[in-house]
């Protein structure tokens, strides 16, 4: 396992079949035993390629993470069933990735908030620091920029202090000058052990993280868009202080540091012998400038998400909010109703069937969570060199985005089965199963071909202008017919709940329009 720290993987790092006879590749002149060179000027190297080079440099030279838990296949893979529980091991046939490295990297690209969890010494702070270096900061700047959570941390420690001279001389608050902490202006922000920060200081942190500004003495500091990295040893949000829920809710993606594979002990030895840290050897070719980071984020947002895949994601997301026992009014039959009322979830003793995906969670998905799913699915597709999100991108990314968003109902019937019991701890595996099962149901219902509610919404979206009363009556009858079919179907599931509400919405819009038509007819 020999290594050369300065070597950046040669492009293309994710080669795809090219059409037509090959022309002379200028890279041929610079290809050779010294390591291949991409002859394109740095600005001509596509940013996704550069990010892939950064990924491979980190996994090959910086972080020992020999895992491929983000699996992609482009041909039938070899699979094995191992152990007493017949655990399925898949050998991916397409380029696959380590979530522990890739997701923080994608977080840098989309400038969201990433929580790194895992026991001490797993390299959480190291990877966060590396990402700061990839964003163009020096090791010294990163050292200064890391905020280390500790029980005595004050708001002043976090944000800054008023300058004593201005504090003495000021006659109004406006005249107080604040010495803002430098980290507030950085494009990469690292909060180490955030669950050791006192609650009051957490609230100040929340303002910076959520609203991108800091406030002291009526003075406001506007922070630039930044990628956030928070670390915690305890997945459950424990630590010295309980993390306030609003802060937890702002975290977009959660990455778990995997264990150390002892087969790679030799690499540790190399690190010890070299006495050098990877942070000191980041190749300049993979360092991103501020404009590049901006452009990367724009490119990711422009990635296309096909309508059928979006529909599938909708169907999955629809499974979780509905909770029939929560109310007698359909709009309030949600888990959110229970939560807002402060009633313990267990009071309802509704375990649901093992097939009911909604019964496995205590909550639904917030708009913020759904937005994050879309952003990271696009980021993963873009990173893989595609300009369109694919099914596998969504399937692979969801568990990490929803890790902290879906709260498991551990008493649900689903977990009683011996083969499902491990999912109480394995949240990544569990969310993946949720998505797979939702997709199976989606396919069973043939929603790609038969989606009457989707069609009704699309028809409505074409507009009401010029629609006559007879057509409106026909559409209203159609909506009622569809509701009658749901009624006859018996049990309500999450996706039907959203359908019902959508049908009710459409019915009301058409009803209002019909009333307007009639009023206009009466007046003319």
């Amino acid at each position, binding site marked *: 396992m*020999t*290594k*050369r*720290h*300065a*070597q*950046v993987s040669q492009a293309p790092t994710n080669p795809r079949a090219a059409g*037509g*006879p*090959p*022309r*002379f590749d*200028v890279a*041929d*002149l*610079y*290809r*050779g*035993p*010294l*390591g*291949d*060179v*991409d*002859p*394109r*000027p*740095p*600005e*001509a190297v596509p940013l996704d390629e550069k990010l892939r080079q950064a990924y491979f440099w980190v996994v090959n030279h910086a972080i020992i993470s020999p895992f491929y838990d983000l699996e992609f296949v482009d041909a039938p893979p070899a699979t094995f069933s191992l152990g007493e529980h017949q655990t399925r091991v898949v050998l991916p046939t397409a380029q696959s990735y380590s979530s522990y490295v890739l997701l923080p990297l994608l977080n840098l690209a989309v400038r969201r908030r990433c929580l790194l969890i895992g026991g001490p010494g797993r390299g959480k702070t190291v990877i966060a620091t590396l990402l700061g270096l990839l964003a163009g900061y020096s090791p010294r700047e990163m050292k200064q920029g890391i905020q280390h959570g500790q029980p005595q941390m004050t708001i002043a420690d976090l944000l800054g202090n008023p300058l004593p001279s201005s504090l003495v001389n000021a006659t109004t608050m406006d005249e107080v000058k604040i010495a803002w902490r430098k980290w507030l202006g950085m494009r990469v922000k690292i909060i180490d052990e955030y669950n050791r920060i006192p609650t009051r200081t957490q609230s100040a942190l929340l303002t910076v993280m959520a609203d991108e500004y800091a406030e002291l003495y009526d003075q406001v500091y506007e922070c630039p868009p930044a990628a956030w990295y928070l670390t915690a040893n305890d997945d459950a949000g424990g630590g010295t202080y309980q993390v306030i829920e609003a802060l937890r809710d702002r975290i977009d993606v959660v990455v778990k540091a995997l264990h150390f594979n002892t087969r790679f002990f030799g690499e540790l030895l*190399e690190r010890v*012998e*070299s*006495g*050098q840290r990877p942070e*000191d*050897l980041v*190749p*300049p*070719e993979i360092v991103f400038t501020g404009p590049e980071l901006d452009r990367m984020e724009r490119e990711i947002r422009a990635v296309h998400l096909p309508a059928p895949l979006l529909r599938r994601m909708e169907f999955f997301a629809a499974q979780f909010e509905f909770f029939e026992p929560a109310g007698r009014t359909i709009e309030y039959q949600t888990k959110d109703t229970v939560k807002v009322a402060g009633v313990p979830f267990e009071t309802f003793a509704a375990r649901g069937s093992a097939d009911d995906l909604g019964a496995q969670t205590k909550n639904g998905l917030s708009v913020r969570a759904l937005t994050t799913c879309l952003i990271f699915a696009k980021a993963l597709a873009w990173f893989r060199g595609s300009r369109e999100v694919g099914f596998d991108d969504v399937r692979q990314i969801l568990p990490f985005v929803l890790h902290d968003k879906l709260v498991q109902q551990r008493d649900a019937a689903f977990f009683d089965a011996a083969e499902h019991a491990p999912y109480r701890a394995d949240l990544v595996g569990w969310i993946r199963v949720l998505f797979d099962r939702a997709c199976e149901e989606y396919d069973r219902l043939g929603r790609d071909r038969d989606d009457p509610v989707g069609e009704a919404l699309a028809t409505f979206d074409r507009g009401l202008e010029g629609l006559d009363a007879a057509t409106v009556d026909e559409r209203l009858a159609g909506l009622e017919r569809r509701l009658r079919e749901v009624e006859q179907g018996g049990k309500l599931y999450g996706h039907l709940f959203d359908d019902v509400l959508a049908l009710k919405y459409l019915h009301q819009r058409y009803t209002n329009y019909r009333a307007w038509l009639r009023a206009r007819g009466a007046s003319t």
Partner: protein
Amino acid sequence: MSGASTLLAAWRDELNARFARDGGDLAPDAMLGFLRRTVVPILDGWDGEPAPAVLIALFELGLVGLRTGLCGAAEPGRFEQALVARAPALAPLIARAPGLVLRALGNGYLNVARARGPEVAAAWLDALAASAARCAEPGALLDLGIVLGWRAGLAEARDAALDRIARFEPALIAALFGAPTIDADPERRFCRPGATGPLGPAAPIATVGGFVGFGGPFHRPPRARVVADRLVCTDGDVTLELHADVFGARLVPAAWAHAAAQTAADHGTCAGMIAATAADSHQVLVLGRREAGA
């Protein structure tokens, strides 16, 4: 202490660990010799304090270069001599991306040497360093290397080089070719740069190919064919594409064309090149039209 000594002392443990890890069966003396005769003069001659990344990149160059023959075991190789001599000119660009530039120089030298011999390769490196001051950043140096590689006889780089030349300043083109513009017309590919006169008749330009027993690529006398508008020569076992112009003529493996070449009709003319083959020869005679009177 000199700049090199200071840097070597500071990075001693790291370099020792790298040698232990990546040195394999390399003799320590060979590496020390490389450091002494190549790395130290380059770093000592550096304008200002060299960054550690330069030292690391040079060290990596030595680790691989000593094994591949790019660097000499006891005496400096031709590449090393040229690198040390030309380091001051190349230093600003090496400083910008040490690993990338040094790998490009080393690989480029090896590839040109493989195709055209070590003297041509050394001349390529000299020419590159001579014009390095005109390159604002490492990417521009690599572009210049492509153009100089083409000028050195890598005919397959013609299209890529013309693409780069289109972005060069006329003064640089004139310095490289003796004419401020290069005619990209494929029919005039055998004309000297700057020549504008009418074309003369087709005339022999070069001979390529040959029997495998004598170091050539062909087992049997090849036939010329045109596949996808490109001129190839095949003996049924291997297929190679012919690239030829005023700077050289080369046959380059073209596996992509092999299947199509077996069924294509004999045809030896394409884009200003004529490939003449004979039933009793393993060689390919390249003909083309130079400017009249050349």
